[in-house]
């Protein structure tokens, strides 16, 4: 790969920027990354509270919710949560977590913060575009928060928003309310619009990341000397660039269906909703599913690959060992991403899609298990013969590995189409989702936060609180989501307001109560993390450059790095995983440390 030139974009000294240009409308990738982090943490709270509402209803389906029952549902509602509200709660929980928490944190926060630092660049290739990518999230924030106050409530057709439930509208001139569901009126329109902005923001970001990584690496930083975090974010950016346009199209089509009565997703023949009738159209509900899942399957890899990359770096650093099988890890990530584009139909096995397509998608889906398995084995290999340091970051990263195994293995059940006939739309799927999203992505996020906090803010988070938070989160999360596998095997369906309504699901209520209690505990325990995060911001600034004795480039910069990142432009002599080399005093050898006689080209990457 080419040796990058340092573009002389600004003079070394320039006028001091005001507070607004420095911290609000900043073009500095680090500030933008932190902005993404803060906004996402706020939405994490919102998404978590929505989840608790769901679990409270599921655990005690017939009880009056204390305080909220009287506050929100007095009068004719009899203090009881209406089923439409429940539908809104789980739909918005998923939408907020996916589009406003995980993707912005992984791609937006960590992507922005770490990429230039880890490749030795001064900033991103397009700093102003970068700033736009953050500020384009704000219309999305406003729209999604407004949607909670829309007439009929926020979107309630699932985060998957399938037509015709989500997209049906009254006839031309009669407004946007939906005869199919109250939440599919203005709430759905706002949801669609908010996601459009999120998509545009992500696309801007991905253009930036790809360009920066290809063009702006420091001298000596070949592609195969980049840390896994950067590789993962690079491949994630490619995924976003290719998949998001399809989602954008799908959202626009549904928006048109809702607002100007097109019929992209409205089938021929009238649809009857009591006295209200809609249609006929000339479209196909299945079209939405194809377009949506074409994006949303790569989206789930967007939500896990950066976490995998970060976890690789964290484990390598704290095991004090080189990453086992660096090249295999890179190829696995590429393989997961590539295969990820041809498996979207596995969300649609039961949808009425031609079953022959199902066979094809099944074969591709089963193969995706392979690179994931390779990665798990490589992480275990990294631990082998290590000198494991159990910091908060390491613990969260280890949790990622062990719990991702569960999430990945449960995926094999769903990939097998005959088994999927049974477990589709049951709690088995919910268990799988949360093992790969909560237990993997979010633990990966925690690991990343504890790991890069000193670099971001020049202070450390409290290690003891970090460990307490980890301990309880690990237990509570497993108590919450593991029994869902059993619920799914027993046949409990997803998205059910009252599981005690049937015999085949009603007898599982004990498990539901256990899960709900664990979920409440899990929610409360996160207070520790937030308290730690916020109070540490006001702690004493230590400013240590490399608290974890890690190899990668960002640890050579000051903490926090100034505008321009490095004291002098870095030069890279080796790969990022030179830990535990025999014959050295220290157990690590940074990428920029020049050994006598070393030039940037000669040392092959350690693999």
């Amino acid at each position, binding site marked *: 790969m080419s040796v990058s030139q340092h573009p002389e974009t600004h003079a070394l000294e320039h006028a001091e920027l005001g507070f607004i240009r420095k911290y609000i409308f900043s073009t500095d990738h680090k500030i933008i990354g932190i902005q993404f982090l803060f906004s996402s943490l706020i939405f994490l709270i919102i998404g978590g509270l929505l989840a608790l509402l769901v679990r409270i209803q599921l655990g005690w389906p017939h009880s009056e919710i204390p305080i909220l029952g009287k506050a929100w549902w007095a009068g004719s509602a009899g203090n009881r949560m209406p089923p439409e509200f429940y539908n809104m709660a789980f739909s918005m929980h998923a939408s907020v977590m996916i589009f406003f928490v995980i993707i912005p944190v992984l791609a937006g926060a960590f992507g922005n913060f770490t990429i230039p630092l880890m490749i030795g660049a001064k900033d991103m290739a397009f700093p102003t575009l970068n700033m736009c990518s953050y500020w384009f999230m704000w219309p999305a924030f406003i729209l999604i928060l407004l949607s909670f106050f829309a007439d009929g409530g926020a979107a309630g057709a699932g985060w998957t928003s399938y*037509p015709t439930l989500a997209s049906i509208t009254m006839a031309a001139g009669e407004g946007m309310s939906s005869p199919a569901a109250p939440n599919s009126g203005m709430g759905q329109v706002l949801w669609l619009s908010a996601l459009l902005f999120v998509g545009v923001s992500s696309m801007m970001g991905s253009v930036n990341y790809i360009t920066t990584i290809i063009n702006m690496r420091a001298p000596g930083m070949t592609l195969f000397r980049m840390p896994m975090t950067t590789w993962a974010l690079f491949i994630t950016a490619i995924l976003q660039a290719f998949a998001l346009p399809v989602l954008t199209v799908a959202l626009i089509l549904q928006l048109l269906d809702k607002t100007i009565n097109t019929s992209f997703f409205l089938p021929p023949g009238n649809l009857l909703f009591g006295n209200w009738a809609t249609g006929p159209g000339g479209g196909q509900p299945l079209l939405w599913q194809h377009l949506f899942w074409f994006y949303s399957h790569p989206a789930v890899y967007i939500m896990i690959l950066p976490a995998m990359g970060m976890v690789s770096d964290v484990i390598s650093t704290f095991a004090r060992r080189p990453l086992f099988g660096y090249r295999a890890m890179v190829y696995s990530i590429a393989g997961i991403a590539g295969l990820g584009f041809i498996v979207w139909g596995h969300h649609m096995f039961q949808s009425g899609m031609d079953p022959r397509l199902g*066979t094809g998608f099944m074969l591709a889906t*089963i193969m995706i*298990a392979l690179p994931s398995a390779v990665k798990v084995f490589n992480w275990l290999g990294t631990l082998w013969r290590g000198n*494991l340091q159990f910091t908060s970051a390491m613990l969260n990263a280890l949790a990622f590995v*062990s719990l991702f*195994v569960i999430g990945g293995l449960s995926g094999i059940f769903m990939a097998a189409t005959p088994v999927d006939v*049974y477990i589709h*739309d049951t709690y088995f799927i919910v268990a799988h989702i949360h093992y790969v999203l909560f237990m993997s992505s979010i633990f990966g996020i925690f690991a990343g936060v504890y790991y890069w906090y000193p670099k971001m803010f020049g202070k450390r988070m409290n290690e003891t609180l970090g460990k307490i938070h980890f301990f309880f989160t690990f237990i509570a999360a497993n108590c919450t989501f593991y029994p869902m596998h059993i619920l799914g095997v027993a*046949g409990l369906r997803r998205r059910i307001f009252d599981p005690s309504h049937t015999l085949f699901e009603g007898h599982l209520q004990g498990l539901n109560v256990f899960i709900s209690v664990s979920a409440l505990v899990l929610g409360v325990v996160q207070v520790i993390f937030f308290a730690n995060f916020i109070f540490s911001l006001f702690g004493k600034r230590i400013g240590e450059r490399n608290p974890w004795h890690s190899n990668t480039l960002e640890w050579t910069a000051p903490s926090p790095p100034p505008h321009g990142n490095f004291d002098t432009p870095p030069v890279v002599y080796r790969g990022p995983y030179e830990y535990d080399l025999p014959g050295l005093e220290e157990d690590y050898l940074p990428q920029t440390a020049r050994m006598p006689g070393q030039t940037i080209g000669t040392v092959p990457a350690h693999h």
Partner: protein
Amino acid sequence: MHKWWSLLFGTVMTAAVLLFVVAFPLGWWLPENIAIGTGNYGKRVDNLFYLILWITGFFFILTEAIMVYFLFVYAGDQGNLTPANRKYGGELKPPSLFGFIIRPLARLIHDQHRLELAWSIVPAIILIIIAVTQISAWEAIKYQSKMPSPGGVGVQQIEVSARQFEWRVRYPSLARMDDWQKEPKYAEDFSEVAHLDDIRLVNEVHTWVGQKVLVHLKTRDVIHSFYLPNLRLKQDALPGKTIRVWFQAEKANTRKIGDDWVDGDGYDPQSGKPNNPEKVWELACAELCGWGHYKMIGKLYVHETEADFRAWMEHARGKQYLTDPRKTE
């Protein structure tokens, strides 16, 4: 002391395994599978499920055990960053208990390339085996070419029209079913043309033991999903399309008690609970269809013999064409 972290991981993972072990005796497991075994997909779904369960269970235990072991053995002095290679001096030092397993693998492990290859190829083979063995089961469930055809002899046709929030079921009358036996081609328009003498019920699917049932699945408004847990059957209903689904039950749950045919061996008049809950087989909607999705429940009634089914249908017909309110109510 930091070795205790491995205990945390080990405990949680052990609890996970134990949960699966105790789930079955506690009744938190697959509902009874009443689908006919031979020539039908029903039992194959379960077999495939168990195959995958054992394989993934094995790899789960293996991987987590290795991880817990590593966390225990390789836990370092916290804060002591002496390079690990000085500790181990180039020699593998596992506790001797595992030596007899690990030493033969040592040659494999030392050669990193070979190891990578091994743990890529072995899972790949296992996955391919899982993939290939299941294709015919999938075909049996969903491929229209493998389903009983409407005009086929010995096929019972039903139309299920899903709507928010119930299942409207239409059966051909006995007279028409008999006609079809003589002239199978007349059976083909059942899904498109509703006849006056069709029997219409709500939330009840009736058939009899061993009979192949072909369901024409429709929906009047949004996407619903026809889910029969005991038959391991699920199919989304798409607005604008009629989708075919089929099944065949091998056990009965319905008999005549008093005036009416009931499942579950009858219901207790006080509590309303079935006397035998094992014999209540439910039909549930499995795709979010609105606020009433949770209550979109029906029941599957399997009569013991065709004669019993016919008797029930006569009874249902009588109720449908009631003209004297003093008779049944």
